[in-house]
């Protein structure tokens, strides 16, 4: 485990050193951005409607019983933009995009395509890792913005339609505007940016470490997804703790 972490730190450092190459690799970055956005936007939106809806459904009746139903907008708004939006989207992207990254680079490694790049004096970090990490670190925060907006809408819809909550849309969003500030949204975006880098780094690292045939590729994909999710959940706690200092 410590060896893996050490290798990932080295890979991250080499990717940082390769940043001046980003302009040259812009075509591949755009391709990756399209791949990530196109593959995930619809799924992210569907997932988010239900996330917002289920929070409203779980908390709304309890609040309504105590005469606090009008506070549901703030509750759904805050929990989605600070916690559930970034974390759930990161988990979704780890499964959808992280696995694809590990599989693609892993198969390139197994079928000697990475070796072929090296013999042409093309650095695999510049060619494969940098565009993927840059694309995911832009795409995930953008997806989170969409997800948060859709989840708020889902929460509002459930609050209005469910007879045990029965909060009009206007009341929901008025309360949401009173409680949720721009810094809360930025807080969630910072988290999602960190998660994106973790997913990109873990997946590319696992891909480059692939050995063996198809079984090796399968193993790398599983490791990339599981390790990414574990790291997201652990980092989420520490990031929340750190970002709390900026809430004051």
């Amino acid at each position, binding site marked *: 485990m410590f060896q893996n972490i050490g290798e990932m730190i080295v890979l991250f450092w080499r990717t940082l050193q390769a940043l001046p190459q980003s302009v040259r690799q812009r075509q591949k970055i755009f391709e990756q951005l399209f791949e990530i956005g196109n593959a995930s936007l619809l799924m992210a939106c569907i997932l988010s409607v239900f996330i917002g809806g289920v929070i409203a459904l779980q908390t709304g009746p309890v609040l309504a019983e105590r005469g606090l139903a009008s506070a549901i907008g703030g509750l759904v708004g805050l929990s989605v933009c600070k916690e559930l939006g970034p974390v759930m989207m990161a988990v979704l992207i780890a499964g959808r995009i992280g696995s694809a990254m590990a599989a693609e680079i892993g198969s390139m490694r197994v079928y*000697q395509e990475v*070796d072929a790049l*090296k*013999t*042409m*004096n*093309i650095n695999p970090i510049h060619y494969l890792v940098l565009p993927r990490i840059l694309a995911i670190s832009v795409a995930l925060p953008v997806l989170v913005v969409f997800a948060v907006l859709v989840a708020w809408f889902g929460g509002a819809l459930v609050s209005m339609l469910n007879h045990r909550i029965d909060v009009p849309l206007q009341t929901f969003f008025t309360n949401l505007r009173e409680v949720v500030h721009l810094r809360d949204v930025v807080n969630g975006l910072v988290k999602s940016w960190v998660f994106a880098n973790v997913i990109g780094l873990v997946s590319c690292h696992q891909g480059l470490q692939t050995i063996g045939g198809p079984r090796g590729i399968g193993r790398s994909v599983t490791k990339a997804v599981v390790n990414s999710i574990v790291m997201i959940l652990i980092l989420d706690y520490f990031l929340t703790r750190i970002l709390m200092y900026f809430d004051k």
Partner: protein
Amino acid sequence: MMNAGGNKIQSCGVRVEVRGLHKSFNGDAVLRDINLDVAPGEVFVIMGPSGSGKSVLLKHIIGLERPDSGQILIAGESIEAPGVMERHRMAMVFQSGALLNSLTVGENVGLYLSEHRLKSETEIATIVAEKLSLVGLKGSEARNVSELSGGMKKRVSIARALVIEPELLLYDEPTSELDPLMSVTIAEEIVNLNERSRVTSIVVSHDRDLAFGIADRIALISEGRIITVGSASDVRACQNPVVQRFLNASFKHPHPVL
């Protein structure tokens, strides 16, 4: 020096020296005290049974593997010296072709030039078309790699290597998985290339016909050791039992049909 199309080819071979090379994987010695000298412009074939360490040796020569001990010198410079890959153009034709599946044939062939920004897009397209026609694949720039047969992939891989205008060209089992006609085409291509550009060619193969047909010199490797090095006639005359067994191995049917 001019090629068939009348264009100037700038390549000329480099000397390759392998000194006391040792390599083990998980405690198993794969290469043991390998010493070789390959002269500039020579076609040098490394022959031996499967699993004898030929491909691992080739990977060391192009810097894909690091030796446990010993060194590889390209034109007198260690392969591990900084910038040696930039100073001496080297290319390798992989056993599987190792073409990038996400790119078309043309993009694969022009990858070196486009990634290093050595030519404009129009010039790259011209060079790619020229190299593809050299290997008999004129007009296949737009095809996907997945549409190609094994022989075509090998020829595209050779075209990709030619674009680099290499001083050293390594071939890993260039005729494996190919039918006899295609094997002859590839062998002719290796010889033609060598005659056109005097590139140093190191070919790893267990194909005896190919080795004796194209080689200036042959090394026979077995269990990670060089058994013999010399011209085709020297190797044929070598009385070492390992060499004789390898050269004379043939299948005899237990129940021959009369």
